[in-house]
């Protein structure tokens, strides 16, 4: 599984303005909806499900990264988007730091393996400081897409 297999390029947000977890998640789900990967009718249900998951424990995993996610029957394959925040989002992360890189995942309920492999993929690349730094500096969706492709092809050292 590659990042470019499940990250929806048309839904990437490089200038997230949200300061809070709620508004950040809403903005990302709306972006997936606008890109046509989530039906408008399912948008509120998906936002509510992701926020409910956050109540169980923050998905802010440290190093300025959060991975909000949910299973939802309205998708038949895993879809994800990336948002970048210059100012940082307060996310109640494990290490207490605000979040600058967000990966939001919506996966079909019957495909837990895909969700695990997506998490594996994302975390493997995030361990690479080059990937993190370049991602935080990306100014356009196209720049992010190119970075994802380089990461998929192990070109980041």
């Amino acid at each position, binding site marked *: 599984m590659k990042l470019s297999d499940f990250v929806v390029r048309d839904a990437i947000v490089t200038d997230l303005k949200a300061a809070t977890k709620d508004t950040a998640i809403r903005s990302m789900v709306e972006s997936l909806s606008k890109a046509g990967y989530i039906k408008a009718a399912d948008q509120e249900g998906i936002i509510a499900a992701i926020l409910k998951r956050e109540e*169980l*424990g923050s*998905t802010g*995993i*440290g*190093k300025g*990264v959060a*991975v909000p*996610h949910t299973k939802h029957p309205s998708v038949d394959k895993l879809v994800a988007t990336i948002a970048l925040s210059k100012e940082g989002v307060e996310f109640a992360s*494990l290490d207490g730091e605000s979040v600058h890189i967000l990966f939001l995942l919506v996966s079909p309920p019957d495909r*837990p*393996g895909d*969700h*695990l*492999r997506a*998490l*594996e993929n*994302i*975390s*493997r690349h*995030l*361990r690479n400081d080059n990937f993190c730094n370049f991602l935080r500096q990306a100014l356009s969706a196209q720049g992010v897409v190119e970075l994802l492709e380089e990461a998929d092809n192990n070109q980041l050292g």
Partner: protein
Amino acid sequence: MPRGALSAAHDLRRGTSPAGRSAAPARLQPPALRCAVTMNPDPIPNCTRAVVVKLENGLHLGPSSQIVQLAQKFTSTLVIRKGDRKVDGKSMLDLLTLAAEHGTVLELETSGADAADALEAVAGLFERNFATDQSSGPADKGTPGAV
């Protein structure tokens, strides 16, 4: 030198772990928990145990977070092995790269002054299948640092 210590020293020279703190010679090892106190120069307790991921959805973000938060309460290191791969059990990013699905066997290895308590606590998470209805921090296990 007591007989057990001689035997343990012999095991160390051969590069094998003694089969328990008493290092009894030629005895079957306990089935799950293996702890050893190396002799010199600094005694660093080291414990290992195999656990099975019983979570239907595998070791996803929530349970991984529970492991990291619990492991960080102890001074001992936690290494988690899946086959040939090994990761730092105190790092979320490391743990998530395991992608351990339902049924995966993992080996937990703790090393440090409170290795036995740390191993008990983390293995307990797997045994309870990560149910969160009870506390399992070092406060429940006596004085942190005691082995």
